[in-house]
């Protein structure tokens, strides 16, 4: 059955995201847009994932734990996890590799930890929008041991994308799914980058503002609208 998704949404934890990107605002907006499944993907962190899942508890919306990881190649990857436990295990493994540059909120923006009532509970002091000291090759090996999938993010972008930084999607990494941005259609993406036709291609909003969260436009064929089914479909289903 088709389920309508937006699997790349930032919260106010990402310094580049609007302060309105609170757990409740995100899940309510996603519901208004008629979405079935969303994923919370902040830069290098899962800090607001649990709060967003809790905020959606009474809504017919599945919130998938996620992260937008920046590897040492300065490429962004959407990581989606079947469970919060899997997300926490990955986050713990990643922690020694996370950048230790201090955030400058005046330059980059605030990095807010919020609870399920949208209350501010703290700030992340280390800058999240920088590269972790680990390569995609090592990250992929770790993700392969977890109930999780890693997806090159916004591959059509001129920066922070696997194609802009490495020239192409390396075929020795074993990806099954790639993500394109809202700037391009699947057909245009295949025309520009013919080699991606071998992958599942998904599109996400990469929303930093409430207004850009997708409407009920981008379906994925799943057995059920759950994080487990979504991750397994994106991870194991090949064209």
């Amino acid at each position, binding site marked *: 059955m088709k389920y309508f998704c937006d699997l790349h949404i930032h919260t106010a934890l990402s310094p580049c995201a609007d302060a309105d990107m609170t757990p409740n605002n995100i899940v309510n907006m996603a519901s208004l847009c008629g979405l079935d499944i969303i994923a919370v993907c902040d830069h290098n962190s899962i800090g607001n994932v649990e709060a967003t899942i809790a905020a959606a508890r009474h809504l017919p919306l599945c919130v998938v734990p996620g992260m937008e990881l920046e590897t040492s190649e*300065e490429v962004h990857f959407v990581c989606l996890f079947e469970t919060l436990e899997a997300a926490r295990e990955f986050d713990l493994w990643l922690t020694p590799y996370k950048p230790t*540059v201090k955030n400058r909120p005046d330059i980059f923006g605030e990095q807010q930890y919020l609870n399920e009532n949208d209350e501010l509970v703290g700030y992340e002091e280390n800058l999240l929008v920088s*590269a972790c000291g680990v390569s995609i090759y090592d990250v992929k090996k770790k993700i392969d041991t977890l109930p999780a999938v890693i997806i090159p993010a916004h591959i059509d972008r001129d920066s922070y994308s696997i194609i802009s930084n490495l020239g192409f999607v390396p075929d020795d990494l074993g990806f099954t799914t790639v993500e394109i941005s809202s700037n391009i259609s699947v057909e245009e993406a295949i025309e520009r980058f013919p080699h991606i036709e071998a992958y599942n291609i998904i599109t996400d909003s990469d929303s930093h503002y409430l207004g850009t969260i997708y409407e009920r436009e981008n379906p994925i064929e799943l057995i059920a609208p759950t994080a487990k089914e979504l991750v397994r479909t994106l991870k194991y289903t090949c064209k």
Partner: protein
Amino acid sequence: MLVSELKEKLGLEYVHQASDVQVSDCYIGDMLSVVMSNAPEGAVWLTVQTNINITAVSVLAGIACVVVVEGMEPDVNTVLKAKEQDVNILKTEKSAYSLAKEISKLL
């Protein structure tokens, strides 16, 4: 040497002209995480990067001016951010190497 003087001597073009500051060093790099940590203050930074974060990185590292090389075009958002943050951004068709050779004679 001031940014404006460097601009004249090297035949660069302003994308955004900010406060005229002293240039005391040169740095070449395209990996923003590396630039953030290693670029010396007061450097003219040569890069092919055009995204909005070059402005933020410049402020963080105390860069005197960014020169976007090889004919790359800074994003609209980058220019807006540069205005907001008072960051000099210039551009050139030349490569980083050929520009650096000229800069080394001036600094």
